[in-house]
């Protein structure tokens, strides 16, 4: 219950117009802060929701693959430049962002992550690493403005945000593959 309240408070905080306006005023904070925080708010709230829908999830997401697939689809969808543009110009898309990220990405992530094997978890992180390098390259080298609402410098910054995050993920993967936990635990 405590987690649900924290998640809900975070969700409401992110919805406050000045907060949303601040995050959305910069491309990188829009994609790399507001969006992950929406996922986290859903992740925190989902404990209570998942307990109520235990049987449904057991039937449809017993090995975690469907849930993580849904999570990936939503996450990839929101890295497309056009979707960010639309979220800023169309009210319905903004509402869709505030519903899809917490409830269709955060909730299934929580239910699926613990069910996945270690190999699957690392595979998912690997996919994100490749995607982040790719998106970083796209945003850095694209000479044209990919979003109508942001300047080229915004897009360049976001590109470097992707690259640095991808480097962090690579460091994690190297750590995961080179250090054997059974040597220490």
């Amino acid at each position, binding site marked *: 219950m405590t987690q649900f309240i924290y998640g809900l408070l975070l969700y409401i905080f992110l919805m406050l117009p000045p907060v949303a306006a601040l995050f959305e005023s910069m491309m990188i904070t829009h994609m790399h802060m507001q969006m992950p925080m929406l996922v986290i708010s859903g992740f925190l709230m989902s404990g209570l929701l998942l307990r109520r829908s235990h049987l449904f999830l057991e039937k449809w997401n017993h090995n975690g693959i469907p849930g993580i697939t849904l999570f990936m689809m939503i996450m990839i969808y929101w890295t497309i430049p056009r979707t960010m543009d639309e979220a800023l110009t169309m009210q319905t898309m903004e509402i869709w962002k505030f519903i899809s990220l917490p409830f269709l990405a955060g909730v299934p992530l929580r239910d699926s992550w613990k069910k996945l094997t270690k190999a699957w978890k690392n595979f998912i992180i690997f996919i994100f690493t490749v995607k982040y390098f790719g998106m970083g390259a796209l945003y850095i080298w694209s000479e044209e403005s990919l979003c109508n609402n942001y300047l080229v*410098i915004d897009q360049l910054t976001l590109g470097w945000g992707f690259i640095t995050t991808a480097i962090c993920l690579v460091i*994690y993967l190297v750590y995961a593959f080179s250090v054997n936990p059974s040597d220490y635990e």
Partner: protein
Amino acid sequence: MDAAIEQNRRAAVISEKKNKVLGVCLEDARISKSYLAVAFVALLLGGLLGLLQGLNRAGVLELPAWLNYYQILTAHGLLLVVVLSAFFTIGYFYAGLSHTLGGLLPKVRKLAWIGFWTKMVGLVLVVVPVLMNEASVMYTFYPPMAAHPVFYFGLVLVVLGIWILATGAFINVAHWRKNHKGQHLPILAFFATGVFVLLVGATAFVAVEVLFMIIPWSLGWVETINVMVARTLFWAFGHTAVNIWYLTAVSAWYVIVPKIIGGTRWNDYLTRVVVIALVIMNITGGFHHQIVDPGISLPIKFMHVFMSLAIGFPSLMTAYAMFRVFERTGRRKGGKGALGWFKKLPWGDVRFLSPFIAMAAFIPAGAGGIVQSTNQLDQVVHNTMWIVGHFHLTLGMSVVMTFFGISYWLVPYLSKRVLTPQMNKLGIIQTIIWTVGMVIMAISMHAAGLFGSPRRTSFTTYGDFAETLGWNPLMTAVGIGATLLLIAVILQVYAVFNMMFFAPKGEVEFPIAEIEQDEAPTPYMTERWGIWVVVMLIVIAMAYVLPLTDMIVNAPPGSPPFKTW
């Protein structure tokens, strides 16, 4: 649950027995003693230079042309902020690693000596240009002021030395963990791990600044430098460095002080959470040192206020934890009523009194820090003596007084000598003089700053301008404070070398407090340093990508080197 509690109890008994049997390893002690000796010699020299500065600012001492104010200011900062703090931290934590992990590995010992001499050579290379008045750039060495290139080569060696020492510490910790599968790292070694992770993270930024920006520029290979980027990289290091010394002091508050007062440690799990939180969130706090810098947009500054204030959270946890430990211990010793426990604390023991005053000083020091993280308030005080007062409270009291308190048991422990009652008394006197001196100095600096007295400026009456003459009484008080502080420095340095070489032989304990017997076991996740380091890196990326890209892409015209002195 009961089994876990029993396991905790057994671990405590075993660690107590091990300490009694093993005592201090002489080879390891030599390493720590060397670091401590350099640290306290630096204190003596830095303190002396501090007095010269204080007397100059008080208007009673005109410095000769061959040793000017800015030279002294640079040397004072470097000796105390970089040498004293870094050498003490390393000496203390290497002693802690040796004690809690059952001795240093031979290769780690070798690394510690290589690191020591690398740092010493670096130090000489830094100091010589300062003495020759070729590097009066102050310890922040901001471009566009440019020192002699040798100064920067020295800095590179100092950083290299730190990396060698961090590598040694990590090797020892990994070795211990391989041989103690599933166990939690002893708490002091846990703090040491956090500190060395931060040292590597922080110095990486300054290494990039010095190697790729400043050295080519000072050698004339490139004509100009991007000042904003250099400042940003410096403060990612500078702020973290300050917090590393603070985390070192905090380790003594959590681990050592409870044992000295005869109590038990604060909850092990929460202690480790505080360390992890400080490690993850620290480096990004550097940005608040640039909160009045031009060329950084307001939304970015606004976000960074959150990142800075976030560091306040584990500090508040620490404040709560410390007073809870004091209260619990005082009550067990029979303290009654709301404040009766306070009287039961060992006020006559310098090993407690000094760190306690250090903690108490952190209340106004931390509050001042929060003030300075706030853009509007910082605009009033940023380039004034207020800031100087602030870091004399944080470093000069909270950190250094804890270091002094540590020295009164660590030096005798390492030297196989004892802390005599006379030395304890001298320590108490030294603590009181230092406290009085620092309180006088810090308060007058804060006040002078509020009236507008600038920092980094030698004495001037501004053509006897009435408004600025009003600062003079406050600056006289700074001079009085500095005089008292030098007396305390002399007593402290005398105490350290007396305990190292002349005190009566004997055995003293390395005071590490145990956990409460009925404490629930700490989850193993606290030991997964690989994950915490990745989280730290992601937080750093979140904080720095945005402003740095802007500073590089929309760079102002670069600056050629300047020699302003």
